[in-house]
């Protein structure tokens, strides 16, 4: 019993540091809450563009009606980067045919959750995208 316990404790004391070693140190997220996603003139109606928001991609959409919308571009299903489909007027993920409407709501296919929506402001020529408070 004592010997068994000692062996188990030894194994645990070898394994614990190894398992901790596998997990890399936390990297601080980019603190920026807003980013210039595009120039107003660059984005035609009924098109979308991927922009860099910190370490993750976002998608900015100029809808057919002329509205500007921005979401996280990371599909909530299995992490692929989504795109805007001008023929469907929807956000589409090519990996597993997931679909989202222009409010970011999961509207078809396997995605389990909506896309995170960002606030969009036009400042001069810039389209500024900001995380919601």
């Amino acid at each position, binding site marked *: 019993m004592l010997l068994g316990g000692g062996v188990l404790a030894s194994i645990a004391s070898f394994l614990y540091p190894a398992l901790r070693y596998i*997990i890399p140190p936390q990297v601080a997220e980019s603190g920026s809450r807003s980013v210039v996603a595009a120039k107003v003139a660059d984005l035609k109606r009924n098109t979308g563009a991927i922009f860099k928001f910190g370490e993750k991609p976002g998608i900015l959409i100029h809808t057919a009606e002329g509205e500007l919308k921005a979401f996280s571009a990371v599909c909530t299903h299995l992490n*692929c*980067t989504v795109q805007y489909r001008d023929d469907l007027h929807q956000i589409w993920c*090519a990996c*597993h045919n997931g679909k989202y409407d222009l409010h970011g709501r999961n509207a078809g296919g396997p995605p389990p959750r909506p896309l995170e929506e960002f606030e969009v402001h036009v400042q001069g020529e810039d389209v500024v995208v900001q995380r919601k408070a």
Partner: protein
Amino acid sequence: MAGVFKQLIGWVDERFGQGSVEAFLRHKVIPLHRHTVWYYFGGMTLFLFIVQVLTGILLLLYYRPVPNAAFESVQYIMTQVQFGWLIRSIHSWSANLMILCAFIHMFSVFFMKSYRKPRELTWISGMLLLFIILGFGFSGYLLPWNMLAYFATKVGTQMAGSVPGVGKFLLVSLRGGEEVGEATLTRFFGLHVAILPGLATSLLALHLLLVQLLGMSVPPGVQKAIDEGREKPRTMPFFPNFMLRDIIGWYAALGVLGALAAIFPWELGAKADPFASAPAGIRPEWYFLFAFQTLKYLPAKLLFLEGEFAGMMAFGAAGALWIAVPFIDRKAGFSRVGRFFTGLGIFALGFIFTMSMLALL
């Protein structure tokens, strides 16, 4: 030459006992019957594994496992290094053919019920080798750092991340962080060239030792015919008769590999861009197509589970069941045919084939 060979055998015999080499070589015989052709696929898988090791070592001379150089280094191998295109294409083609041969070997063993007593451990070691081979495929796929590889890795690692409890640990351990990036490439490289080869070599040694010790299995149907006197038991010595036939097959495979690599050089695609959308028509390698297509059909929620997790659970359970088949299929006695498991095998093959075809449409 023959003299040197005899001297070598004599040297070994002196140390391990008279006739030990001959006894070892003559121990294994190959049963001859209408299904004997399937016995070649294990050896063919082994041959392609050796090709992988050799071409992999050559690729290591130029490959650089960092995101800003990996794609360029493969491009360099393909365009600048003499015969680099050939080495890389053979590595890719051989990887695919090895997986195909491993699957054929596994299913032939399954349908011939070679897993039954006393070969349960041979089956288990073979199944683990098959999983390791798929791990080679998955980890090696990322190394050229192209678009398809990048998203395939995102999807694959995210699936591991959906396991309750340990998902986060698995995801971060595989990716080396929250996202697929430099740390992921480093880890996958380590997995591909050190961890998996080490595991594969050890398991392969065990698998081959078990095959040598236990000999080749005779399918229950053939055994029954022999027992009832309808068929005569026929065998062929493994050494040298079957081995020479094996070598002819390997020689032909080398020719096929060279031809495939020359006529259809393996594509490199576009460099991975973490800030680009997943391209339309994206799909994984053919051996993961059935899983990919199944995931497409799963709804967001299945009862109280998330769709992809339910799918993973189902695949995990199927894999575990497959490994445990020798212990579940009690009917596969020495000369009886367990029809249920044969049916299960046909269903599995049908499912894999149908889903893969649907993914290609």
